[in-house]
């Protein structure tokens, strides 16, 4: 028992050091070019979001009533909206909102789900039964329905939207983490940790959770796209981020619908931004799953 643990733990950093991150990334790009393109788009989105205040040509909140519903031109590359606000600048700042909501929801949802799932698997018995039945209740509702219910209770606003999207993600992540953790729970090193008298908390956090990292990362990337789409959906329905905050879904509602025929740029460009971001996150997430899943690694 004691001999297994140091050997198993010792191998992991050695492999990583020998291959190196650079080599892993290059290998990922070579084996999965679509995933790499997705990763590049994701990276661009993150950079655009972070540097919005530098990149955006206009203040996204600044109205110009002399340039209402202006067509795309040299002055406004993607035109203006019904209040004369620059569409490009709002899309750039909207990327910040999308990334903030996306990363916050995916991180919180996947992390809390993983902790609950691993805890449930570790304790098994009645605790597992109870946790899983509670999760089943949440899983009975489609993601968007549960998010709508939560946001209708909490109200609108960016913090509430993050909560509303995170809550339905937790049981989904918990289910995946639990199934991985059930196998880990029977591993000799977990038995060894128990025998050594480590606390439940230490066993869960230091010995089990790190070993569900692969499904965790897959969930994280998969949920990013979902969270962005959900945020856009909620904002489009008027239940998400409120005006004048720049948000892609919000840009698709109101005047964008009213003037869809005479000023289509108000809807087309934010719609394209949503599609591109979600597509990129899904491509990246799928490729990451393929790369990390041992059953798919050779395919």
């Amino acid at each position, binding site marked *: 028992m004691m001999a297994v643990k140091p050997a198993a733990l010792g191998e992991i950093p050695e492999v990583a050091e020998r291959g190196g991150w650079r080599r892993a990334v290059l290998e990922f790009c070579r084996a999965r070019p679509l995933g790499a393109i997705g990763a590049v788009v994701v990276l661009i989105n993150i950079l655009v979001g972070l540097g919005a205040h530098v990149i955006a040509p206009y203040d996204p909140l600044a*109205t110009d*009533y002399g340039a209402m519903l202006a067509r795309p031109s040299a002055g406004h590359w993607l035109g203006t909206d*019904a209040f004369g606000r620059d569409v490009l600048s709002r899309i750039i700042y909207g990327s910040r909102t999308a990334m903030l909501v996306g990363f916050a929801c995916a991180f919180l949802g996947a992390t809390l789900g993983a902790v609950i799932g691993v805890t449930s698997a570790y304790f098994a018995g009645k605790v597992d039964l109870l946790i899983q039945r509670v999760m089943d209740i949440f899983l009975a509702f489609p993601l968007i329905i549960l998010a709508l219910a939560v946001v209708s209770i909490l109200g609108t606003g960016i913090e509430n939207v993050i909560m509303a999207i995170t809550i339905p993600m937790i049981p989904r992540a918990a289910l995946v983490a639990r199934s991985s953790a059930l196998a880990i729970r029977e591993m000799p090193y977990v038995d060894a940790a128990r025998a050594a008298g480590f606390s439940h908390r230490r066993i869960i956090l230091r010995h089990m959770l790190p070993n569900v990292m692969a499904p965790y990362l897959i969930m994280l990337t998969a949920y990013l796209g979902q969270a962005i789409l959900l945020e856009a959906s909620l904002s489009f329905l008027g239940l998400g981020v409120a*005006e*004048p905050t720049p948000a892609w879904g919000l840009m698709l509602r*109101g005047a964008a*619908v*009213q003037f869809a025929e005479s000023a289509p740029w108000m809807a087309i460009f934010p719609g394209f931004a949503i599609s591109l971001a979600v597509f990129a996150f899904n491509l990246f997430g799928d490729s990451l799953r393929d790369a990390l899943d041992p059953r798919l690694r050779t395919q």
Partner: protein
Amino acid sequence: MRRCLGPLVTLFAVLWLPAAPPAAAQGMPRYGGELIFAVPSEMPSYDGHRESTFALIHPMAPHYNTLLRIDPMDRSGSKVVGDLAESWTVGKDGRTYTFRLRRGVKFHDGAEFTSRDAKATYDKIVFPPSGVASERKGSYVNIEAVETPDPHTIVFRLKFPSASFLSSVASPWNWIYKADILEKDIRWYETNVMGTGPFVFVEHVKGSHWVGKKNPNYWDKGKPYLDGYRALFIKDSAAQVAAIRGERAHIQFRGFSPAERDSLVAALGARIAVQESPWDCVLLATMNHEKKPFDDKRVRRALTLALDRYQGSQALSKIAIVKAVAGVQVPGTPFATPPAELEKLAGYWPDINKSRAEARRLLKEAGVPEGFAFTFKNRGVPMPYEPLGVWLIDQWRQVGLNVRQEVAETAKWFADLRGGDFEVAMDAQCGYMVEPDLDLYKFQSGPTSAAPRGISDANYTRQKDSVLDELYVKQSRAIDPEERKKYVREFEKRLLDEEVHSMYTLQWHRIVPHSARVKGWTVTPSHYLNNQLDTVWLTE
């Protein structure tokens, strides 16, 4: 050239389509059919005396009658005619109004309507017991007593003569309720329906629809013409337009934006009729005087000084159902302040730079720092709340304020306004008739934490202003129009300039495109009028 075709077709269609003729001139009514209409919001409760939203009156008015009503054929929305009262007389002193009630009127449960029901209704509206909200009780402050000398007569004794009393009795909100029910449970009508109206309640599926069917025992023989009606709750305006465009709904009584009208006319041509009217409605930005720093009138004044109403009027009229810059009366009506005089009020100055400089100075003087953040609570009804909300936030931003918007559904928005759970909120003032008594009662002293009973339950500013209360009574008592005008102006100056309890945004403009099959309905300056549907019929 192709680009020009769309607008040209729309323009041609608008010009070619005659404005719908008055309801009376639309030929012989046809019996049968179900009128389907969209309602952009849903009612917080079923009680017409308590609520003040079209979301209640559009689907529910057909179940009720009032003592008097506004003539459904009158486009000006000002001609008072009898409903359950068939005639009335005014005493020589101008303080006694006697109404003779119709005989043979029955509630939908078969019980006969008598003056006892009318009195119980008005007692609830004018003298509600503690804990029972009566939204418009502030407009009945001149009623001293309601008496019923016999089962078919009701008498109102006033404290002083009032030129607007008949208009007040014609309020479309004053549905006649059943005395027996009110005696048992005065809040029964908040969750139930029982009236004498032309249509009987069938069902309400929350979030979906409201259905009414023809009342076969309606007192006005030969009416209604429709077999029934179905109100569809459709929040999204694009979905409402799509419902009318796809001919799945005949009408949406509240109104559409200019762009939506144009798209419907372009799509349906002769199958759509358009009726337009000035609209006795305005959105207000209401400041909670119990929340700092809005207890300071310098801050409130700064907020109104930040608004460029003239530019807003030009810009927003292209995308929203708002148009004129107005004071407390609809522009062009007898008691409205002329533009030159209006320009003297805070927030109406023609020089916006000077106005905003003064706003910044006042904010600084009041100790409000640059970038001060507060939350603006708006109603989750897209038009015109959404564009006006964006406009207000942008205007306040230009004097260094950082405003976050919170959008609430109608029921929550009302609850928050009534409970004082807001800093600054969008509020609405819509009248069913342009008349100072009806337009100003709202601003009399409202409930506060210290004194929860106010004269006006519709005043959400959480303050009491005895000067305004006195001015309201003075203008209401003034029989001479010039004297009344003087008091209305004083009221306006105190409300909008000196104390700035609330601030007016822009006057609405009503546009109702509807299926050409809908006859017997006439647009008025109020979306609270003409919803009984007893005169409405559908062509083949």
